[in-house]
């Protein structure tokens, strides 16, 4: 079971990378809205709204 001495530290390194990535994503505002993105899967693109370069009237 000496492989543990390699695998466990390896696991810890991966864990640290994950947590660092998560902190970055949080700081980036990716977790600020946990509700509406879930809906966007259903809502988007079933009929594309008219997209123009029209200015506000």
């Amino acid at each position, binding site marked *: 079971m000496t492989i543990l001495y390699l695998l466990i530290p390896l696991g810890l390194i991966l864990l640290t990378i994950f947590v660092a990535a*998560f902190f970055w994503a949080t700081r980036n505002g990716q977790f*600020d809205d946990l509700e*509406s993105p879930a809906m966007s899967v259903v809502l988007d693109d079933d009929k594309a709204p008219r997209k123009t370069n029209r200015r506000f009237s």
Partner: protein
Amino acid sequence: MTTDTCFHCEDAIPAGINIVATIGETPQRMCCHGCRAASEFIAAAGLDQFYQHRAPIADAVLRPEQHNYAAFDKTDISRQFVATDDNGICESTIYIGDLYCPACIWLIDQVLTGYEGIESVGANPASRRIIVRWHKDATTLGAILAQIATVGFKPEPVTPGSSLDAERTDYRSAIKRLVVAGVFGMQAMMFAIGLYAGEFYGMEDSQAQLLRVVSLIVTLPIMGFAALPFFRGAIFSLKQKRPGMDVPVSLALIIAFSASLMHTVQQAGDVYYDSIAMFVLLLCLSRFLEMRARHNADDRAQALAVMLPAAVTRLNSDGEPELVALSSLAPSDRLQLQRGDVIAVDGRIYSGHLSVDESMMTGESDPVVRGVGERVLAGTTVMQGDAIIDAAATGASTQLGEISRLIEKAQHDRSHMQTLSDRFASVFVLAVLGLAALTALVWWQMAPERTLPIVLSVLIVACPCALALATPTALASAASMLSRNGMLLIRARILDCLHVGSVIVFDKTGTLTRGKPEVASSDIFDRTRADKQQCLAIAALLEAESGHVLANAFDRFMPADMTLDEPAVVTLAAGVSGVIGGTEYRIGKLAFVTAIAGDRPLPAPSSDMVGSEVFLGCADGLLARFVVCDTVRSDATSVLASLRNAGFELVIASGDNNAAVQGVASQLGIADYHSDQTPQDKLSLVRRLKRESKRVIMVGDGVNDAPVMAAADASVAIANGTALARSSADSVLLGNSLTPLLSLTQIASRTRRVIRQSLIWAASYNLIAVSFASLGWVAPWMAALGMSASSLLVVSNALRINRPLAKPQLPAIDTTSESRSVYA
């Protein structure tokens, strides 16, 4: 959706209305032209999927409102709300009070994206804010606001750097702590399984030591980061000399961690890293949910700002009107006001006169007329007329500012109350420490070498996991149950207070009543000349021109097949006259109408409704008398009767005049009512009730209710009341109906019962386990197992709150918008 409700706003379509709009090639019925315009706009923009995706509507109104958004393009005003970076990208946070469901966000997103210059639109439905980024040359804040307003929302830009930032920082660090506790906790639990397996099947000492050291490493971030708020809370509450639940939690964590650390260093004995991880994870989770619920509803930062316009029309030294930011006003400035304006300052009228809706400030349901030299208040709305006023007080020195100070004071007074579990916690800590000391003393006499392990096991078994989890899990469960029943839970206190014998104080205008005028009764004098429907149609046509507050009552009777021959003529403080089909009609005060209709003896009114009388007549004589008043909500009578049967004491406290309050009170069968109440009067009423050691729950909607709501033991706000009232409430009624109050009482008693059961279970488990441990009978694995099982039991007990409710005893509920609840 039945054909009897408006396709757009889902309000009932009044009789005689036949407005049809073609949406996605299907003709749909509408209740008014406003709805038709809004839905045609939505359809024309290719956004009609909105109607499939939206949740049930909270407030029936989605009508575009007139608003001067161009004001936000003035440099000195826009500077307050817009942050521009070096690349010319502007960012602004916009608060939208009606933002409750994902379809709303989708709609706003679709309306904005795709237009030139918009970089991105981000939404936070929880705090009802959207963040828009755009290029500074392409468009302006004012244009964006106007665009949002076209679909019927009321956008209000937020000053950056306010409490919103603090809220966001809190939220982000809570989510970080939760994930750290989760992922590191899973590692700790995984290594713990290795250690347990080693106990049973044998394991080399070096490998066991490896697992211990690794567990210690993964537990460090949990103790040092995820559990930090508990330690801070404990230190803070000890400094305040009011130890709360954080104290035993911290104590348990520190003891379990030190014991594990000691055993790791000694390379022998049991470690409890997995228990620490699980405990912290569950606590972080329940606190995270609680925080989200609180942020969802806390509009305080926005409350005052939303009530007042950001820009006002000031007369400069040459008497020319100019648009300036509210913040740049001085008390001696002269302001121009017109119909529809929200007055931004306290002041006196210099010239002209106004009819002002002061109901939000005073509770008075009828608009009041103010002439030269008379006072007007900040936060009230001009219904009719135009005038020039001298500002007397601005900002915090207005009466509105005074009210918000009252609220703060009341909230400060109330923060000294302790929750049940906090009181429990302080007793608990003392008891455990005492027991541990006693155990140590006894074992020291009997067998000194066994003292340390046994004292340690006592302290670990006494870990109040279940005890600490009992209240938060039950509350999280209750909050989700309440939101499914049309209520938002903000602070748990409301569940504590709502039991038999409590006094519920209701505001009248906007709470028990709808807060807008309606035709309560009509007497038709000459049925052969015009029947009721015709009379109402004529009245609606004439009143549409008047802009009078009572005119709104007739809106829903607007006929599709009748028009005025020429524009109607409005005579101030008298009425309106107009020609329809060649006949002149007059509507308004009796004398104004009889001037053409001739006098005749009037029959007695057919109902005892109290309200303003409006007469309709033509040259052929008087046609009808309408009583227009703010009518009682359709479910108020049944809800109040059920509450009374359930043993609650009901009181009405209103700022309105005696006749109006008495009318409503007798209609609802409430004997105890108070009229002409200022906010201070209401406060002293609530204080008096509290001195009689009764629990007081206040239900209200207006600015004048807000201080009282803060001072009462608990309070409920109406969702479409003022933001100030919402911010001082403990829960919010989401739909436009009082019925969820009945569910609230049931859920409250259920939650109290569950919390009591869980606390008793957790306390007795700890008590028994601690006594066994002090006798030296508890093996460490038993302690760990018992701890987890007991926590699980408490969590599943909390889930029982989500059982379906017994149907409240209600007479048939009508199907108008009033009785619908909303799922936010």
